[in-house]
């Protein structure tokens, strides 16, 4: 399942909704990304996350399909937020569901690596009086 939304979400509920569909899922690996208070030695007030939504959906579908080919997965969940986000807000949740842990661990890492490198989102970070567009370095 893929969701791109402005609203916050409850990770546990979102994961449970999918988990309940798979009684055979013995492993779930999830990653949650948050807005940090400090970045590049600057105090962050908030960020604005811009998205090319149509492309993001298309690219997420593609990467999930690739993950299914590489690992034995039951399901994948990606929720990525957009718009204005304050410090300590959730940015992204990726959760991978499988029978065994290796598949869920590795696929979750794979999806996050892709997401940081290629998913069409851009962070505009706001400080006290300035702002700065960021580039992912890792």
């Amino acid at each position, binding site marked *: 399942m893929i969701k791109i939304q402005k609203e916050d979400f409850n990770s546990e509920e979102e994961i449970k909704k999918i988990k309940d569909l798979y009684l055979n899922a013995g492993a779930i690996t999830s990653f949650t*990304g948050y807005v940090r208070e400090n970045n590049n030695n600057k105090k962050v007030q908030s960020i604005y*996350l*811009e*998205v*090319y939504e*149509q*492309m993001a959906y*298309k*690219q997420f579908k593609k990467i999930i399909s690739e993950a299914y080919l590489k690992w034995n997965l039951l399901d994948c969940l990606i929720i*990525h937020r957009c718009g204005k986000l304050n410090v300590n807000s959730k*940015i*992204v949740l990726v959760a991978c569901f499988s029978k065994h842990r290796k598949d869920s661990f590795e696929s979750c890492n794979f999806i*996050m690596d892709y*997401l*940081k*490198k*290629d*998913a*069409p*989102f*851009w*962070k*505009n970070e706001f400080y006290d009086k300035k702002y700065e*567009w*960021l*580039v*992912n370095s890792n």
Partner: protein
Amino acid sequence: MKIKYFAWIKEITNNEEEDINSIKINNLDKLKDFIITKYPDLKKHLDKEILRFAVNQEYVVKNIDLNPNDEIAVFPPVSGG
């Protein structure tokens, strides 16, 4: 064709999107020439290979033919996640 600009690129173009109807712009290289002529401040970013291009929501690195119904996006390196 429709051209979309994202993040700080649109601060240079002062424009989020525009329609281009020219039969002369029939591949990506010609489109690149068009945008750096129209927005000269983009040239240095193109030269440094900072600009990314997507055609119909797929990344494109090499020159490809473009069709009138294509949607082309021009954007900087991403920073999601």
